[in-house]
């Protein structure tokens, strides 16, 4: 067991005071949950922060970001939360006579009603249209607190995924994968000669010949490794 500096009463740092909040600058920096980010006065709370008793506090581990008057924390990792309009790749986990339950990698499954599905089936024939274990490209239609989100397959390009491979990356790496105005993703598609569709839920559909798919997968692996090494807190 490697020895490290032990906490002694006589060398406790003065900086932290359990009794009250601290002042801090608005310079971007790494923060952890509970850290005080200053007075609420004149600011709005964005993602990853909360206002308590007139002060702003970080609720996530990540980098602070001030955009106009909105303060937020960009976390290293975050669960996917569906929003209406999101393009997502889902796996069908179950079904009843007229709805499918779809795993979209969110805190709760989505439902796909027969009326929003790819085709009509006889009542009870749900599995002949989309079977359990199949993957679909769909769009989030609505998200409401009291029931599951609803996805739809009515829309351009939405379909059952019949070929290719599905890879998963952390949703927060999507920005890096897609690049400015989609540049990086376009380049990847060209070089691998594959169709690559990125779902907002961090799932990617790669469709192309076998070598191209391998190339995309290798690129994803190195991108994830780079991100881990570069970002604070990322340990392999």
């Amino acid at each position, binding site marked *: 067991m490697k020895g490290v500096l032990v906490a002694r009463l006589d060398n406790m740092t003065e900086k932290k005071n359990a009794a009250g909040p601290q002042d801090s600058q608005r310079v971007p920096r790494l923060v952890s949950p509970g850290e005080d980010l200053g007075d609420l006065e004149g600011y709005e709370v964005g993602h990853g922060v909360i206002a308590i008793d007139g002060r702003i506090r970080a609720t996530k581990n990540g980098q602070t970001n001030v955009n106009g008057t909105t303060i937020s924390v960009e976390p290293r990792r975050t669960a996917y939360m569906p929003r209406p309009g999101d393009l997502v790749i889902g796996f069908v986990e179950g079904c009843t006579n007229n709805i499918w339950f779809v795993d979209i990698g969110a805190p709760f499954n989505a439902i796909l009603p027969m009326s929003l599905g790819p085709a009509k089936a006889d009542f009870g024939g749900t599995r002949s249209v989309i079977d*359990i274990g*199949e*993957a679909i490209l769909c769009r989030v239609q609505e998200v409401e607190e009291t029931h599951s989100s609803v996805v739809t397959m009515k829309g351009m390009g939405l379909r059952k*995924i019949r*070929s290719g*491979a599905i890879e998963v990356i952390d949703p927060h790496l999507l920005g890096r994968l897609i690049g400015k105005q989609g540049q990086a993703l376009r380049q990847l598609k060209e070089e691998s000669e594959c169709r690559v569709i990125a779902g907002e839920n961090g799932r990617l559909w790669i469709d192309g010949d*076998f070598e191209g798919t391998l190339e995309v997968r*290798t690129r994803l*692996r190195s991108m994830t490794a780079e991100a881990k090494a570069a970002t604070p807190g990322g340990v392999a």
Partner: protein
Amino acid sequence: MSIPLVPQLLRSHLKELADNDQRLDGRNQYQGRDLELEVNVLANAEGSARVRMGDTIVFAGVKFQTMTPYPDRPNEGGLMCMAEVRPVAGRQHEAGPPSAASIELSRVVDRGIRESGCIDTAGLCIIPGEKAWQVILDLFAVSDDGNLFDAFALAGIAALRNAVIPQEKFEIGEDTPLVVSKTPIMCSYQRVGGRFVFDASGREELGGDERIHITLGDDNHVHSLQKGLKGAFTATEFTELMAEARKKGDELRKMVHALEGGN
């Protein structure tokens, strides 16, 4: 969900990969993942090891207890192997009593070590008919990304070979190393996309079919075999796997021996 969902797309993609002699992570058919093996990692165990194979991470701990010998074997002690895959090891592992799969895992790893005879239970006798040592090997999964079988088997034998009988604590004498006369090594092969591969990763396991576990001793004697899950294999396939298991077994055995201090 206690039974993991197997996206159908995964299976067809694995088939395409296999047809082109490729695997999801770029490995060769019989190539294992990056492997780390450490021993003496648990301060309260009398023998211990940690194994990392890719993102699969397990611990093995050896504890000694005294027991009353069985009446029909008055001069022998005992060996018990228990494997636990707790919810910590994966999203698919839920709390509750052990599943049939994890019981099979436990028993297959136990047989691999026990049947090799590497622990002579007669040598564990303290007072004939009254007291003997019970060696308890606990295998603990921290992260499950496939092939817990081989990870457990490797950690288990490494822990045993570095174990010290705590005679001082029990006031029986001086601490002495546990005598382990062999180094049985398990190699597991799973049919993925139509052909057998070594050291299946989590996704390969999810989309794969039957498995074969082969435990060989130092002299390539066969100590235990198990075929699991649905599917059939040919004698030719099996012969090839045995040859691979011998090669890989030698390699892993050397790795275990390299870590031994006083043994």
